[in-house]
């Protein structure tokens, strides 16, 4: 049994290259996704390890596997002075699969153990035709993969109340790419003379998790969950590759100007604390309603500093100064019979990113998600499907961009979650 858990954990660890408010992810279960993530006060399937670890105290012995296909799209329309009116850019089609594998194992009437792994953060910003992308000297690729394994113990002192505590073994990788510009003396225009790729990780950190679930009576419940911030120092490499321009003497000068080749590089990211509270009711027969508020402590993300160990002058510091944010979620479920469940919900997700920081590295904005879901129970099996259409407010960086990269970013995403729960 133990080895199986590790296999699932390992799979999930590597699967995500992801997409969420800031770069957080909230889609860790198809049932919750169908209700827009308003699940903290229900937490009645194993995805509770994220939504509210205390929920496992009320669950049977079960195995859970799920994934969410995320299909984002993003476009950029420039204004002056740079890149200028009429310039359009887009991201290539990408697919991300943040996944969740969890086992819940009640030890006795009061204590329940669970372990699961999922991808709490992820980012995948890349641009079409990178060597010609007008923002290529800022960023052509910014990717963060993060996964964690979260063993959790829950205690249920009374039949209507539980608390849980977990330890998160957190691992992440980061990749950054951009081009190096120079004026070509022969053309008196800008040309690519080099390419930089920074790879950090897989580096690890440890955090903790907490949950509380209280059922006032048979109709009302309250939940609270908290995942701590995790600071990760990435040690990796930065590879500087010269790009020949075709002008031999200019290339010879360029080759001496920059220490090309692989250098040790370091960066660090503090992944923020995430907290949720939720209130759910089943006061209307066959219906469940829940409202949640989530908090994410994104002010932890104040800069992205790239340090080149042997040549500090090559390093960069990009100030971000993100803000703490709240998300607001509403979800419902209707159960026409014991086997079927229909779900829906809506989420308003605040962006932690100030407008002046919006750019080719990460173009975030406030978003609204519209959700629908479906669940089917047959004996020991539960199958859940959850869909979310996420629309982003347009971000117009005209006159404010710290990258001097002006225009409107517009994004949207389709998310389709699927999950199986097997009780045994």
């Amino acid at each position, binding site marked *: 049994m133990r080895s199986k858990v590790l296999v699932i954990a390992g799979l999930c660890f590597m699967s995500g290259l992801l997409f969420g408010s800031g770069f957080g992810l909230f889609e860790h279960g198809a049932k919750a996704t169908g209700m827009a993530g308003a699940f903290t006060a229900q937490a009645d399937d194993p995805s509770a390890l994220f939504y509210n670890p205390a929920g496992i105290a009320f669950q049977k012995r079960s195995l859970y596997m799920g994934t969410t296909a995320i299909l984002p799209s993003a476009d950029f329309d420039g204004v002056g002075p740079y890149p200028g009116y009429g310039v359009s850019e887009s991201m290539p089609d990408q697919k991300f699969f943040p996944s969740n594998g969890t086992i819940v194992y009640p030890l006795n009437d009061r204590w329940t153990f669970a372990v699961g792994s999922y991808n709490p953060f992820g980012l995948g910003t890349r641009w079409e035709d990178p060597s*010609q992308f007008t923002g290529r*000297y800022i960023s052509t690729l910014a990717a963060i993969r993060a996964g964690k394994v979260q063993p959790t113990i829950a205690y249920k002192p009374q039949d209507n109340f539980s608390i849980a505590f977990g330890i998160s073994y957190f691992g992440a990788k980061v990749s950054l790419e951009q081009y190096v510009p120079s*004026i070509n003396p022969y053309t008196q225009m800008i040309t690519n003379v080099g390419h930089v790729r920074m790879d950090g990780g897989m580096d690890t950190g440890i955090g903790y998790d907490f949950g509380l679930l209280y059922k006032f009576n048979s109709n009302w419940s309250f939940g609270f969950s908290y995942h701590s911030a995790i600071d990760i120092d990435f040690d990796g490499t930065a590879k500087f590759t010269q790009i020949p321009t075709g002008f031999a003497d200019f290339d010879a000068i360029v080759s001496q100007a920059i220490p090309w080749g692989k250098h040790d590089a370091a960066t660090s990211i503090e992944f923020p604390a995430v907290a949720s509270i939720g209130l759910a009711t089943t006061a209307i027969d066959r219906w469940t309603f829940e409202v949640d508020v989530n908090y994410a402590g994104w002010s932890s993300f104040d800069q992205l500093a790239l340090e080149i160990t042997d040549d500090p002058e090559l390093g960069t510091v990009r100030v971000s100064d993100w803000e703490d944010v709240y998300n607001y979620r509403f979800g419902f479920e209707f159960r026409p019979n014991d086997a079927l469940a229909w779900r829906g919900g809506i989420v308003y997700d605040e962006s932690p990113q100030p407008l002046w920081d919006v750019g080719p590295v990460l173009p975030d904005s406030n978003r609204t998600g519209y959700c629908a879901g479906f669940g089917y129970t047959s004996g020991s099996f539960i199958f859940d499907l959850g869909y979310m259409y996420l629309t982003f407010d347009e971000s117009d960086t005209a006159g404010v961009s710290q990258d001097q990269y002006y225009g409107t970013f517009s994004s949207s995403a389709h998310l389709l979650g699927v999950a199986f729960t097997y009780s045994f």
Partner: protein
Amino acid sequence: MKRLLFAFVILSLSLSGFGQYSKVVAIGDSLTAGFMSGGLVETNQLNSYPALVARQLGISPFELPLISEPGLPALLELHGLLSETGQLSPTIEAITDDPTEWGVPLNLTLARPYDNLGVPGATLNNCLNTITDEGGMHDLILRGLGTQVQQALSLQPDLLLVWIGNNDALGAALMGTAIPGVTLTPKDVFAAQYADLMDTLTAGSSADIVAGNIPDVTTLPFVTTVPPYLVNPSTGEAVIGPDGSPMTFLGQNDGGGIFITPDTFVLLTALDYIKMGYGIPATLGGTGIPLPAEVVLTPAETATIQEYVADFNNSIQAVASSHGIPVYDFAALLELALHHGIEIAGMTFNTEFLTGGLFSYDGFHLTGLGYALAANAFIEAINDGYGHAIEPVPLSDYFFPPCCPHARSNSFDVEVHDLRASILIMTQHCKNIKQYRELQ
């Protein structure tokens, strides 16, 4: 597709400030004419800053005194960056030295004045009073139809771009000789003529007017590129003199010495002399003949030119303010470029020769990219001063090839000159200049 295109056109019309002015006219000098790399040529004139402003306003036609390839005079080209010994030493030469092969006027028969009336070499006085210069640039562009000011007013513009005065002060730098009243327009004359210019323009037209000012002489690569030191051609290192400090060229010295002082500016025009051994002591393989006074700016000359530029800019600002005319601060743009660089989307533009991106091969006039930045600064001044929202020139059009008419193919011959002292140019030199400035 057609409908999409149509929608796009409508959108661009509504967004880009089209229709805010219907007639734009520019008066000025070479910087207004679109002079670049030592000459005037069609492709660059079409991207002169007034032509770019007109394009952003949707004004067409915008008539220019177009000149055919290879330019008038023929444009300069870069033939190589390295000397025989591998030191940085660019070879820059005109496409042709034979005037019979230079470009010819293409739009001489236009039955009305040009919309871009900028005349290379024009001073403020020329702008007000010169109709003919006996076969020079004025005749080419003004064609006997009146002074720049007269012709501009006759076109009844509703937007007038006025960038004049550069030659009144910086002409002294080009000539390497700062003599008030001779190479520098007297301050009181400039102030009076500038007031006269704006009085005439505002009395003779109801156009919105925008004025440009004059940059500091030490922001020009024509002045700052060549270091004052003798350099060993085989090592690229400065030659150390008997007193242990780097040796400077032989040349004009404010204090009467035979060597120039380290804070003397050696002009780009000195390179031809240095290649012939001027400025280099005979013991080091040179001719022992000092660099001519017209290819160096001594500290006293530099200070004089700076003093005149500052005074002229005060006059421009005062006259403009009295008429409510916004001023495009070109001097500030180049100061920013010199001290910090102009940063745009991960690229940095500065005043370095060849690699800074702003100045063309003559070290004095701008590149296409530099003129695009100038056009945007003018547009910003118009928008701020007159409450418009004219869309800036899309800079990406000027940052990346294909563009440049004189971009050379990948195969070229490096012409190597026999240098007695190789000249380290580009980054290293500008660092030296900055150090001097800091020491001062």
